[in-house]
């Protein structure tokens, strides 16, 4: 299954993902200075800086929230809450850190807290929820060509959260081990261990799905 996913439409992605050719680190270095400046301004109460950070990172936070929850509808709320939490905690941000990793760490905390605080969101009038437009209803998802991705998505969501969050941060968001460790408040060794097991479990799930 993994090999199948890697063919065709993914060829370009694979090429870019080859060792040393990923442009993310350089781009992030360029962004980091801007982020640090924006965070300093935000800590001083300059709200426009929050808009800059939103422009740069809302897509990553939204993507992360969706990958973690499997529900695109959660994206708006998590993005909103994450950036407001960033405002409240701007003075604690360390300029040497990755702002995006810091934001994703906040998002992870918010999602964990929301989940543990109970099902009130889902319970309240859930029966009357209006259908949600958007990518989750993309007709293409029903097509055979998408079945592999659907399977991957399901397998990802079946991973234990502790492993899933590390995998998403590393593989999808491109964060480094130290960044993930700081964002989640865990030792970097734990990051590598969880990432290794997450990859193995995901690969096993995909292979099992591919055979079925």
């Amino acid at each position, binding site marked *: 299954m*993994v*090999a199948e*996913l*890697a063919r065709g*439409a*993914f060829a370009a*992605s*694979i090429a870019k*993902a*080859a*060792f040393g050719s990923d442009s993310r680190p350089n781009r992030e270095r360029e962004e980091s200075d801007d982020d640090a400046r924006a965070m300093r301004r935000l800590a001083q109460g300059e*709200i*426009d800086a*929050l*808009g800059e950070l*939103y422009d740069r990172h*809302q*897509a990553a936070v*939204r*993507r992360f929230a*969706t*990958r973690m929850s499997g529900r*695109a*509808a959660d*994206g*708006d*709320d998590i*993005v*909103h*809450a994450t*950036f*407001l*939490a960033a*405002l*409240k905690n701007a003075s604690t941000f360390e300029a040497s850190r990755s702002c995006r990793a810091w934001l994703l760490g906040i998002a992870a905390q*918010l999602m964990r807290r929301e989940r543990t605080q109970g099902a*009130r969101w889902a319970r*309240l*009038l859930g029966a*009357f*929820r*209006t259908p949600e*437009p*958007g*990518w989750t209803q*993309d007709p293409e998802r029903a097509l055979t060509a998408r079945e*592999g*991705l659907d399977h*991957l*998505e399901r397998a*990802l969501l079946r991973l234990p959260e502790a492993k899933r969050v590390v*995998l998403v941060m*590393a*593989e*999808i968001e491109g964060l480094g*081990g130290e960044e993930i460790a700081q964002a989640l408040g865990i030792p970097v060794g734990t990051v*590598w261990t969880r*990432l290794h097991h997450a*990859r193995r479990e995901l*690969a096993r799930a995909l292979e099992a799905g591919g055979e079925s």
Partner: protein
Amino acid sequence: MSARCSETSSVEALWDGRLDANREGTLRSHLATCQVCASESRRLEALRAALRALPAPQASPLAIAAGRKLLLDAARAAVPAREAARGRALALGAAALALAAGVAFWIARTSAYGRDHGLAGSSATLASAPSELELRVTPGSDARWSQVSAGPSEVVSLAAGSLDISVNRHGSARRLFVKLPDGELEDEGTVFTVTVAREHTQKVSVTQGSVALRLAGQPERHLAAGETFEAPHASLQAGSDSATPAADAGHATLRRPDSAPGSTASGHTVKPGTEADACPGAPRFEDCVDTFKRGEYAAAAEALDRYTATCSHHAEDATYLRMVSLARAGRTTEAATLARAYLARFPEGFRRKEAERLAAGG
């Protein structure tokens, strides 16, 4: 039997950037010649590529812009609130002297409102001018209390004693909560008195408007003008402040507007959350829901219209159901108008996303 290589276990470390420069160089050279390790590398590549190819949520530019505005509105509402709180803290000493002299402590502040997930926000469709919430707190001589601004909310905390609270919203959507040792009370446009003793809420008397009273382990109560909540044995616990004799043990007492002040004859005991939910002249909320469930959306909209016009209970749920009913009945313009009203009234509402969509005509 599959081929093996002792270096394969290091490929993942290389992929993750965990190796030093020398080791990395050696392993890269090795990859060029070892099929086993090259295969492992391709497997890792494929997995990353597949994960990155998962369909990403595609927010429209309009939605992103609306989210940005919501965020900045909320942020601007939160920052002045914090500054105001700091200012009030500095003034606390002077205020304490004023309180000792029995002078009412007035707090009036101006802010935009918003929602917050505990934070704050407002709707892009509601880009309203800043509105004012006027809060007047008159403490009893025995009151131990404090007041802070928290995002879109004003929060008064009452540890003991009595507070007379008067709220004039001037159209503000800011929310006022009174934190109690055993729960909270939310203002709904109100003049009311609340008394706490021995870590429990003893009495809440509403003079104007209504409040929602949420005590631990009990259903939410809505008290309208003229109604009084008294805890069991309140008169014993609250001393002379409580004019009404205690209710039956285990039940709270709810006095209706027809109760003469201080009268014991017309006070009556109810189980929490039952009688208080009834609204004379209004259809039952459950009936409105049933109508909705049957798919009779026009009828549900009308029933909910009558319900919300008369009854303040279930206000958020009723408003939301009514807007959905209108939308499904094809009355999209009315639904959008109501959705905007919902967002103004319930900036932290549970259905704000749907409301935002309906407000935008979606």
